[in-house]
Each structure stands twice: as C-alpha cells, then as structure tokens.
C-alpha cells in the first residue's frame, strides 16, 4: 500500500535554513545539507527546499546548493521559490532537483503549468497554493468553513488575488500539475492543526495528491490530516527543526493510529 508521506520543509536564505512564523520573524535553524541528511536518516519521505532569497545573486547560490543536495541526499526533494519561467525549471532540474514547486508565477501565468508538464512531465510539477479564508466569522470547530471565501495569495502570502482556492486547484489539476501543496494562511504558524476540512474537499474532488501545509503542532494533527483531511502527505517546518516532534516518534505514533507510513 502506498504510504502517507512526511515532508520537512526547509526555507533557505543566503544558503542557510530559516523558518518564519506566520511568514515573518525569521529564525536560524541550521545548515541545509546537514539538516536534510539528518531528516533523511530519521525517516523523512521527501524534502522541500524553498528559496526565499529575492536577489539574482541569491538565485545562483541556491542553484549551487541544489547541486550539492542532489549529490548528498538519497531521497526525493522538491525545490521552490522564485521560479518564474521554464528556464528556471530547467536550471533546477538540471542541478538535480526531483520536482519544482511553483506558486505566484502559476497564478500570474497559468500556462506555465502546462508548459512544465509537457516539457518535463507532470510528476515534476508541484503547484503551491497559499490561501486564506477571508470570512473571520465563518468558523466551525476552530476550522474556517470550506464554503467560506478562500482567496489565493501571491508573493509569499502578501498580495491577494482574484482567484478562489477550489476553482484554482481544479484548474491546476486540469492543466497537468503532479501535486498540490496547499498552505492555509489561517492555520500557518498557529500550530493548531491543518486545514482539514478544506484539505478533504481538495483531496476528494481532485485526481492528484494533496500535500497539507500549515498548522502542524502535535502528532495528533498529522493523524487528523491523513485520516480526516484525506491528505496524501503532510509538510511542516518548525516542529521538526526545533525537535518538537522527532520524525521516528511521529511515524511510530501514526502506525499505531492506523496510518500507513514508511518505517
């Protein structure tokens, strides 16, 4: 049986790992390659490296880092951040990334998804969606209602768009993306659980895997997103970086709770 995946996410700035809380206040959390190796040994199923540097110089540094990651890490890894056109995808795949994650560029020019799928295959194309439920009153059991007004954001969650989450996710699926990485901005950094109602609606209506992101605080949150949110994978950063939830312990727990994970 195909296992549910646990994915640590490493935000990279100037060659170092950082993690924001609610997308601001960056804290240092170690060397990206050493951290990636440690996660791989602990049993992480994949890694995501997000380049949050904006400068051209930073881009080159990140590409060099991707080459070193590919040489040293023996599990699949996705890279994202600042991918605007097909040549960026080509550069990062050539450096050794298994998949690329695109976000703002896809919202600005959705055809990029088709182009990546056609040129490199759907399996390399992860589309990240940052969305926020704008109706603050529409909550059920602490979770924003799925029929609320979920707006997609660009530029690292700073700028709202006209796009709505479920319509956009459907279009992303139809254009040939291989996976969707959905971050609920209402849940991100709060450590109160993933956006399971919205995740479940995505997982049950789309034909591609859904990666849950934003909100992991306890082991139970991972169980809930797999069992109730129907997520195929769960991504988190700080709970792993600061050792709050060791991956081996998390996987033992999930197995005991009836979630099929790789041990």
């Amino acid at each position, binding site marked *: 049986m*195909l296992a549910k995946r646990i994915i640590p996410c490493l935000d990279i700035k100037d060659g170092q790992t950082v993690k924001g809380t609610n997308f601001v206040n960056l804290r240092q959390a170690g060397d990206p390659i050493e951290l990636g190796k440690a996660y791989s040994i602990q049993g992480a199923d994949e890694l995501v490296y997000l380049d949050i540097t904006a400068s051209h110089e930073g881009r080159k540094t990140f590409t060099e880092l991707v080459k070193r990651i590919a040489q040293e890490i*023996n*599990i699949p890894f996705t890279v994202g951040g600042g991918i605007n056109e097909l040549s960026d995808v080509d550069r990062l795949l050539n450096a050794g990334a298994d998949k690329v994650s695109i976000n703002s560029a896809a919202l600005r020019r959705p055809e990029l998804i088709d182009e990546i799928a056609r040129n490199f295959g759907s399996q390399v194309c992860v589309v990240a969606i940052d969305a926020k439920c704008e109706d603050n009153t529409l909550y059920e059991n602490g979770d924003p209602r799925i029929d609320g007004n979920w707006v997609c954001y660009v530029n690292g969650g700073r700028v709202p768009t006209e796009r709505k989450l479920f319509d956009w996710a459907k279009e992303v699926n139809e254009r040939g993306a291989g996976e969707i990485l959905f971050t609920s901005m209402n849940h991100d950094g709060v450590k109160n659980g993933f956006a399971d109602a919205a995740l479940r609606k995505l997982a049950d209506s789309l034909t591609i895997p859904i990666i849950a992101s934003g909100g992991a605080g306890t082991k139970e949150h991972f169980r809930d997103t797999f069992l109730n949110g129907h997520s195929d994978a769960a991504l988190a950063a700080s709970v792993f970086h600061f050792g709050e939830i060791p991956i081996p312990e998390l996987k033992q727990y999930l197995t005991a709770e009836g979630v099929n994970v*790789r041990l």
Partner: protein
Amino acid sequence: MEVAIIKYNAGNIGSVENAVKRLGLEPIVTDNPEIIQKADRVIFPGQGEAHSTMEYLKAHKLDELIVNLKQPVLGICIGMQLLCRHSEEYNTDCLGVFDVDVKRFIPQKHEDKVPQMGWNTIEDTKSSLFKGFEKPEFVYFIHSFYAPLSEFTIATTNYIQPYSSALHKDNFYATQFHPEKSGVVGERIIKNFFEI
C-alpha cells in the same frame, strides 16, 4: 569496476550518477557504444515517456546495442519499461528483452491516483538484487504504467493490483522504482547489483 550509465533523452540520469558516486565509484554517463560494451556494469536509467525515448534509442542505434549487452544491466523506471516488449504509452514497441506488455494503471476508486507517487513496499523478492532483504521494504515510485506479473517477476508491489516492481532475465535486471532515491534500501539494491 567500470560502470556505464546510458545517456539518452530521459530525465533523472544525474540522480543515478550521484547515487553511484555515493557508493564510491566513478560512473561514466555516455552514449558511446564502445565504452558501454566494455563496462563491467551498465545502468539504463531514466524518467520519461516511452515513445520519444524509444525513437531516440533507435535513431542513435542504442536499441541493438542494449539488447546485445552481455554484462549485468540494470534498467530503472522508464529504462525497465523500455526493456519490455511493448508499452501502452503511445502504443510503443520497445526492446523486447522481457516478453511483457506494459499497461496503464486504471484507477478503481478515487484514492487510486495516477501516477503512483511515493513510497510503497516490494514483496516476494527473489533475486540476488535483493540479497539480505528479510521483510517487505519501502522504495520510491513515480509511474503511470506498470508491468503485469510474469515469469520474470522478482519483486511484487500492490497498487490498484499486484504488479512487477522488478524483473530479471539472464543478465538483465530492472526495477520500476527508483533505487537512487530510495534511501538506504535503494543504496543496498545498487550495491547488490554491483556484487552480482
């Protein structure tokens, strides 16, 4: 030991090169027939689509070269499917080392997403490729097409139905999964291949 990795128009070849280097060897990534023929081990890797890769192999005369190799050969992912007789992917005639027809996964329920992407187990392993394996181990897959069970099956995986996750005939070995991305289990499989 000389290891040749066949260079052609498929993706992911660098990952195999990196994996072999992590084992302390210096592989040569090449489409040069002489180097490939003389190598002690040949790896036929890749990720991609059957029709365009097969056309490329024929245009570069790599098709005849591959089927006539005598040393141990390891096909990976699309490399494995190309070693079969035929693929449903754009109705492609392949190399025919394994008398097996590659089929497309047909989802039976909503959870059956295609491609299969992620970690699944290999069971009923029977080959020196899996020397030292005592229980079903997880390995990494990305694929939309599969080889049905056959007399060549040396490992079985269950996704939608049981299918061949590895094949063997004479000097040809092949895995549907990516050992180069399968952590320590994958490293062991590549090491076993070098020790055959």
